[in-house]
């Protein structure tokens, strides 16, 4: 399944300073669908280059990271259980505090 991933607010530094990633993700063994939970595992395995604790905590993202699926807060569509569809856009953005 083709997905567009985007990292911002400094998270891109954990992904080789590249903000946008076009990726193809297959459902994990025995699953029919790619959920946000399996996407996070896939990212950890395949994309994340350094300091995983700056992106993940337990089986989710670390505090201070907003997750947006097709420009909507993942809180509105089921968080880790969100089922992704072909061509979905997922944005991970670290909240900023500077001024």
């Amino acid at each position: 399944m083709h997905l567009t991933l985007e990292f911002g607010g400094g998270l891109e530094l954990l992904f080789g300073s590249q903000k946008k990633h076009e990726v193809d993700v297959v459902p994990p063994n025995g699953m029919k669908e790619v959920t946000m939970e399996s996407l996070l595992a896939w990212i950890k395995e395949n994309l994340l280059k350094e300091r995983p604790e700056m992106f993940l905590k337990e089986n989710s993202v670390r505090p201070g990271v907003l997750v947006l699926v097709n420009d909507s807060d993942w809180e509105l569509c089921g968080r880790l259980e969100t089922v992704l569809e072909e061509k979905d856009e997922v944005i991970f953005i670290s909240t900023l505090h500077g001024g």
Partner: protein
Amino acid sequence: WAAGGHGLSRDQVQRYSRQLLLPSFGVGAQERLCEGSVLIVGAGGLGSPVALYLAACGVGCLGIMDPDRVEVHNLHRQVIHTEASVGELKVASASRACLAINSSIKVVAYPFGLAAKNALEIIRQYDVVVDASDNVATRYLVSDACVVANRPLVSGAALGMEGQLTVYNYSNGPCYRCLFPTPPPQAACQRCSDAGVLGVVPGIVGTFQALEAIKILSKVGDPLSSRMLILDSMSSRIHTVKLRGKSAECVACGGSPAINHITLPNFDYEGFSSSPMSDA
């Protein structure tokens, strides 16, 4: 509007004529601005355009709060200050600039930071609060105090080449804690003084913050509640994303909040967020 029957003076009618001409703005909205008040927490990169544009458009009373003095490395982005004000309190420099543009408004300068002990008392005196601060501890405090005092909060942030903007605690929208119940790890709390910032980026975010404050005060347009504007200046791409609503479990704005006018003044925001409120 020239015929009178409104609360604007002749000087105000002349000064604000280009806004009074707007059919969707007009006298009513301008009167609400002139009678309204905004507290700006931070007179730095974000606070500079917020203060300039709110003073210019005629917000009746501006509170400007900042403990710091102007330094030369502020000047690449904090355009309300000048070389002559280096060493001066930022609130003094910013107040002077606001009154130079519009002497008909009132400006109150707070030459100290927002603290748990003083937040509610000060915030209650204003209609709208703008978070133009530079640290995560203050961001939790401003949000909590706005919830307890029942004030809408226009929150902006900028770092590096990016900016973020939303309105909290407005019309069933979330507060800062609804979005971020747990503070981020300390390593994720970089400031402009650590990580740098392209000067014009807080300029853009701050000008948008002034717009949102104007919309809320004047009751014109749809404020950015339950939505966030995300700016990537390098690609000139701007996402407006949809955020969750108010959370029933939120410790600040939920059904049975742990944070209230009794507990807030004693809450340890710096400890909670492992982040100091000042650079010192």
